[in-house]
């Protein structure tokens, strides 16, 4: 039995469109419940200190205060963590950054809770802090966690770099650095925790990864997983950012709800969010490359240190993605890469759209331009000479058995942007003008989905009702990317229904098995595959039920145009609704659950090699900029962004991902930095943490490349993250083309372009 997938590759109206343009979508902060209390957090007053005592009596006595909890009230594990269990929702003996909580208050109003927080007295013994990951790894550094400050060391090894450097005509060494940045979702983190009458603790809120949060809350509060239910409210942006920090909020609010038996709302102010929630890792990157005079790369040796902040969070996985991809999409016969993640007393760092790739892409793509410059080659030609092609072997020793399209992406993008002409023309024209034009490119490859981080599997439930309407449930999250629409399209395609017939149910851990997090750009390829399987299974039941009436074998029956019909004979048909009723009357189960597991991969951590991901995507972005060399202002005029997504199930949402990813990367390249001095956050709100406005983003040309992948639904792979990993490097290369200045540290803000160094801020204590 077949489907009618004409809706695949089209862009129907988003299924969440109306609620979002009329203001009726309900986000976490819109939730209200009878008897609800409001919680506020007493934060640490030192970035590194031992807690000597906490006095909460005065706070508890304040009228309107319902409860004050400290670590002593936690019934379960003191900490949680996806990989290393070190993140303490309420600190017990020690605080490790200024975002740590020492106590949490619930009161009738937020104002009362805030006053109560001020009445809590905490005595500390201040400990020396460490704020630079390179310092943290020295033997005499203050120890932040008992096992020391090294969170992880990953490596890749291929060939023998000694041999590779020996074959080189030139050795080029460069160092780069990237800054700490904030997701800056416009909605800050929020939860409402309440107890169902059956004793289930429900936590509804701005969750990205519901099952991670459930594990954390259950562990910390000492509850079975079945007694914790996480429900997602409409999510006001996440970009990787509403994971661990939501677990923290869930534990705190959940504890207060257990204590008071009342609903608790805990929402972070923007200031709380900037101090408390995790950021993108700052990296320090040293590259050494051997290259022949003809432009052939012979070896790369890479050393990277990442600032993990106070807790490990995703540092192990973020740095693993970096170590796999650190050479960029190039044929490098000899590779030696080491990456270290270190604890510091800074705000902890974790997942942020890109997940360890924006940092390395900035470094290796800046470097590729620098090498091309040394060799006197055009950056495009130099890359085309070295990029991975079909059946090439990556830095981790993986042979690529799919269409390797980085070369195609380079060619398509440079053609669209008028590369050859502009590379030649701009320097000539710049001689006579103040504002300098430049054009720069960056390309990358990216492993799709979780790779060897762990089991990559997820489920979907399709339920056909007697009237022919359909419910779809998965454990994955809509964050704005369009997941509900794409999944609904897949079901509509397989069942031959208009998309309006499909209802995507809100994501709720009590409705489906743990299908992993909505991360790693895995939703379409892993989740979409599960949805498709579930829809096909449901359709086959309908086909079986209708086969007898239609007088045709099930294999000859298709679902199309809201009918179940005999293929090639549309007169022999019953309506979808009739078929559903028939099947139900025949006692059939029209609910199907499907599970999809990713194809096998392997990784040898000891030897630093393996087939890290089952497939890869490729992309190229070009930035055309205008630089005012006197003020340092960089105007990004146009960006061409080509991404091979396998198959664009919904081209408009693909374009949306590309435009959004580019804008985020423009902010990363030019504006953004969470400034911390000795553990103190200086950029406390959106007046100082500057993300791009509409005036700061130029014209974006989204170019969709489609080389279908055997592992993806309809050939689809992914798009979300690769879009955000390229543009900062492309801008840096364009600025260099315009001005001749090579800037190796992000962001390329005004001072840096004019003076060549960053602003040195005065120390100021804010808390």
């Amino acid at each position: 039995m077949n489907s009618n997938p004409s809706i695949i590759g089209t862009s129907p109206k988003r299924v969440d469109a109306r609620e979002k343009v009329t203001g009726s979508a309900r986000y976490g902060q819109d939730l209200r419940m009878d008897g609800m209390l409001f919680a506020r957090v007493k934060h640490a007053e030192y970035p590194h200190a031992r807690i000597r005592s906490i006095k909460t009596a005065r706070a508890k006595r304040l009228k309107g205060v319902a409860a004050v909890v400290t670590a002593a009230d936690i019934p379960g594990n003191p900490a949680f963590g996806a990989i290393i269990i070190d993140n303490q929702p309420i600190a017990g003996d020690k605080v490790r950054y200024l975002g740590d909580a020492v106590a949490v208050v619930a009161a009738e109003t937020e104002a009362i809770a805030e006053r109560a927080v001020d009445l809590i007295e905490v005595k500390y013994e201040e400990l020396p802090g460490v704020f630079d990951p390179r310092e943290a790894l020295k033997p005499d550094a203050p120890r932040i966690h008992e096992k020391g400050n090294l969170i992880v060391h990953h490596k890749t090894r291929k060939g023998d770099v000694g041999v590779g450097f020996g074959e080189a005509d030139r050795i080029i060494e460069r160092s780069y650095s990237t800054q700490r940045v904030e997701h800056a979702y416009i909605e800050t983190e929020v939860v409402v925790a309440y107890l169902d009458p059956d004793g289930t603790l429900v936590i509804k809120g701005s969750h990205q990864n519901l099952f991670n949060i459930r594990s954390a809350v259950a562990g910390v509060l000492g509850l079975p997983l079945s007694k914790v239910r996480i429900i997602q409210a409409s999510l006001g942006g996440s970009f990787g950012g509403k994971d661990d920090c939501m677990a923290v909020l869930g534990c705190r609010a959940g504890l207060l709800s257990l204590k008071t038996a009342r609903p608790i709302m805990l929402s972070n102010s923007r200031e709380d969010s900037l101090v408390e929630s995790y950021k993108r890792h700052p990296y320090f990157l040293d590259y050494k490359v051997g290259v022949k005079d003809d432009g052939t790369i012979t070896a790369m040796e890479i050393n990277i240190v990442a600032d993990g902040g106070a807790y490990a969070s995703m540092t192990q996985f973020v740095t693993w993605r970096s170590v796999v991809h650190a050479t960029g999409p190039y044929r490098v016969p000899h590779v030696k890469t080491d990456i270290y993640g270190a604890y510091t007393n800074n705000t902890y760092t974790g997942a942020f759209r890109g997940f360890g790739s924006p940092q390395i892409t900035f470094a290796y793509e800046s470097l590729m331009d620098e090498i091309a410059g040394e060799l006197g080659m055009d950056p495009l030609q130099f890359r085309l000479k070295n990029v991975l092609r079909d059946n090439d072997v990556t830095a981790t020793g993986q042979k690529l058995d799919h269409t390797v399209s980085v070369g195609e992406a380079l060619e398509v993008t440079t053609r669209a942007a008028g590369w050859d002409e502009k590379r030649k023309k701009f320097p000539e024209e710049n001689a006579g003008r103040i504002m300098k034009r430049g054009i720069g490119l960056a390309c990358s490859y990216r492993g799709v989905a979780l790779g060897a981080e762990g089991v990559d599997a997820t489920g979907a439930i399709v339920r056909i009702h007697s009237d022919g309407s359909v419910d779809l449930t998965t454990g994955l999250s809509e964050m704005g990317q369009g997941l509900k629409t794409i999944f609904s399209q897949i079901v509509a395609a397989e069942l031959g229904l208009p998309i309006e017939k499909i209802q995507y149910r809100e994501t709720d851990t009590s409705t489906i098995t743990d299908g992993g997090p909505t991360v790693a750009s895995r939703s379409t390829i892993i989740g979409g595959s599960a949805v498709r399987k579930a829809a096909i299974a449901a359709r086959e039941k309908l086909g079986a039920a209708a086969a007898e009436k239609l007088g045709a074998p099930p294999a000859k029956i298709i679902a199309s145009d809201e009918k179940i019909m005999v293929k090639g004979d549309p007169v022999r048909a019953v309506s979808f609704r009739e078929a559903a009723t028939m099947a139900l009357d025949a006692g059939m189960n029209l609910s199907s659950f499907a599970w999809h597991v990713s194809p096998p991969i392997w990784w040898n951590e000891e030897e630093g090699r393996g087939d890290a991901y089952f497939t890869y995507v490729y992309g190229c972005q070009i930035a055309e900029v205008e630089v005012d060399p006197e003020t340092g202002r960089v105007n990004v005029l146009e960006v061409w962004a080509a991404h091979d997504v396998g198959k664009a199930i919904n081209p408009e949402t693909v374009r949306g991902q590309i435009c959004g990813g580019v804008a985020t990367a423009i902010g990363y390249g030019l504006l953004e930095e969470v400034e911390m001095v000795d553990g103190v956050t200086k950029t406390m709100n959106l007046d100082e943490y500057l993300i791009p406005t509409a005036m700061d983003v130029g014209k974006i040309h989204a170019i969709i490349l489609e080389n279908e992948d055997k592992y993806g639904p309809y050939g689809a792979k992914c798009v979300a993250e690769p879009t955000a990993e390229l543009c900062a490097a492309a801008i840096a290369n364009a600025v260099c083309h315009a001005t001749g200045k090579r800037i190796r540290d992000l962001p390329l803000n005004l001072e840096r372009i004019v003076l060549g160094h960053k602003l040195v801020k005065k120390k100021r204590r804010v808390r």
Partner: protein
Amino acid sequence: MKFNYRRAGSLKEALEILSEGDESLKILAGGTDLLVMIQDKLISPGVLLDINGLEELKGIEESNGRIRLGALVSHGQIAADKLLREKALPLVESCGEVGSPQIRNRGTIGGNLVMASPSGDSIPALYVLGAEVSLKSRDGERVIPIEDFFTGVKKCVIRPDELLISITFPALGPDDRGFFKKLGQRKALAISKVSTAAVLTLRAGVVVSIRIALGAVGTTVLRAPRTEAFLTGKSLAPEVITEAARLCAEESRAITDIRSTGAYRDEMAGLLLARGLEKLA
């Protein structure tokens, strides 16, 4: 943040209330800075006196070659005003760059002055326009030249019993030119790292007189007297402009703070001046 609220029905009533001497009273106009300061707990007023109903404090008028702005005129009104575009261009340019459209719709020119932030964008423009500020109390009215109005970061000479009611300045004449230029980290919704405003009288290509003011470089907006003196009597030849920019950067002596460094600000103060002058040459 608990406070009381009073709304003045007339200027007389407002001045009466101010004369009561309640030190915890703060005046509420557009609220775009005041409410942020309250949220940040930088101030905790006992009473807010809402003056938005005072018609006497509204309106843009010209008479006898002078322009009068009521203190409650919003940045948005100024930015869109035809008369001001013709006769007070630096002010129009500065108000058009304040915050966002929503902030400009609410934020008032009077509020921008009494907040006395060195990065308040309207201030350098009013310096070079030679503005005067009218402060009224129950006991009378005094008129203060704008350069005498500010005494430090977020400090000015206004007394607690006084209300800033209007700003007046001479309309620019046919030989007068002016500009306001600012640099922020991003292109909108950005507080100035540095700003430069100038008004000059040009006759037969020669600078007859010039006033230059620099924003966000010090504790108050600063004039650049040496640069002004240098330019007076000269034509705006390229080498003159280059020297003026150098002098201006030299006398800026800007501070380093969260938004920029002194070195960068100094250089930009001169550069923005040069860029403005080049357009007039």
